[in-house]
């Protein structure tokens, strides 16, 4: 089946609409969709200083590259923030550094080793009874928020796409966690809290497959590698189930997202004041307890 717009050779068939597109029309479709998301949900405001959480993967390069179009037109200021967890032979940021240098984007790198005195490799040895993803996730989110405040970002853009979000929605549903779902959406959080820099997800309505195709065509320097500590068992099961369902019933993931978007305002309203957060007595970051989880882990590391 040729491209629906020009009859050229197609590079992708969109699963939810049975439309095939050539390279040129796919790029147009993809960027238009991302820009529409940005417009519809007011993800960017003129003069915003936006940080992009850059991992060196296809999603974050895609976000950075599309937001660059806005900074080139002086709509926003754009910088990138990368977290170096210290995972030997996995976390490789030299491609991110080269990309930012070439595109004249300021890149900040924050390292676990500098902040917590331990790289992830060392933490794993210390925390033998814990799943690496559990504490790594806490530390990564901590540094992303800390860095966003330090570098005075108005918002932090992440590479979360339609697949990631539909998995999260289902996981929260299966685990009876509607309060966690209330924090999802193209712009995160249930209320404005200056201690939290809000996260925006420009790729909210594009699929992982579309993002991979975009990244391939654009030639972003992405290499496939698997984190040696990856163990997201539950998410993997939900993802596999959703992919299976999607191939049998095309459009499933889009339906999950579209119906979620309809109920999200009432979810946010419902959970607006359910949990007033205090500030961590050690570091000042928002927390529901006396000390935040990152400081709890740091205490354990010191023992």
């Amino acid at each position: 089946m040729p491209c629906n717009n020009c009859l050229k050779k197609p590079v992708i068939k969109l699963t939810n609409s049975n439309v095939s597109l050539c390279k040129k029309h796919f790029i147009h479709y993809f960027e238009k969709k991302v820009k529409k998301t940005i417009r519809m949900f007011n993800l960017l405001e003129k003069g915003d200083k936006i940080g992009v959480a850059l991992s060196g993967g296809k999603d974050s390069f895609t976000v950075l590259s599309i937001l660059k179009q806005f900074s080139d037109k002086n709509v926003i200021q754009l910088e990138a923030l990368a977290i170096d967890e210290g995972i030997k032979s996995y976390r490789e940021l030299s491609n991110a550094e080269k990309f930012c240098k070439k595109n004249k984007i300021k890149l900040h790198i924050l390292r676990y080793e500098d902040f917590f005195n331990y790289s992830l490799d060392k933490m794993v040895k210390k925390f033998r009874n814990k799943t690496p993803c559990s504490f790594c996730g806490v530390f990564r989110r901590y540094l992303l928020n800390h860095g966003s405040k330090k570098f005075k970002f108005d918002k932090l853009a992440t590479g979360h796409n339609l697949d990631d979000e539909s998995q999260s929605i289902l996981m929260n549903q299966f685990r009876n966690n509607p309060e966690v779902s209330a924090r999802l959406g193209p712009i995160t959080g249930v209320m404005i809290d200056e201690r939290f820099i809000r996260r925006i997800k420009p790729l909210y309505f594009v699929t992982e497959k579309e993002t991979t195709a975009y990244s391939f065509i654009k030639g972003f320097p992405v290499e496939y590698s698997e984190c040696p500590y990856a163990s997201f068992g539950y998410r993997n099961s939900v993802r596999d189930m959703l992919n299976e369902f999607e191939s049998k019933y095309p459009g499933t993931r889009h339906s999950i997202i579209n119906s979620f978007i309809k109920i999200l305002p009432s979810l946010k309203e419902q959970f607006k004041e359910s949990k007033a957060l205090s500030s961590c007595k050690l570091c000042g970051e928002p927390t529901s307890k006396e000390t935040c989880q990152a400081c709890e882990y740091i205490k354990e590391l010191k023992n």
Partner: protein
Amino acid sequence: MPKVFIERENKHVEVKASTVKEILIKLKINPEVVIISKNNELVTEDAKVSETDEIKLLSVISGG
């Protein structure tokens, strides 16, 4: 037989097939989880393949 590189498993295999779709069926790979390149150009499942083509199945799922 066309040579097929499966990125996620980092291995090459040879598969007797005349279309990409047939390759995916034979390798039991869900088309949702890969994009396909033929001689370094992206193609859809409908693309025909010949003996000399180099096919790559690139994982859409990130590694963690």
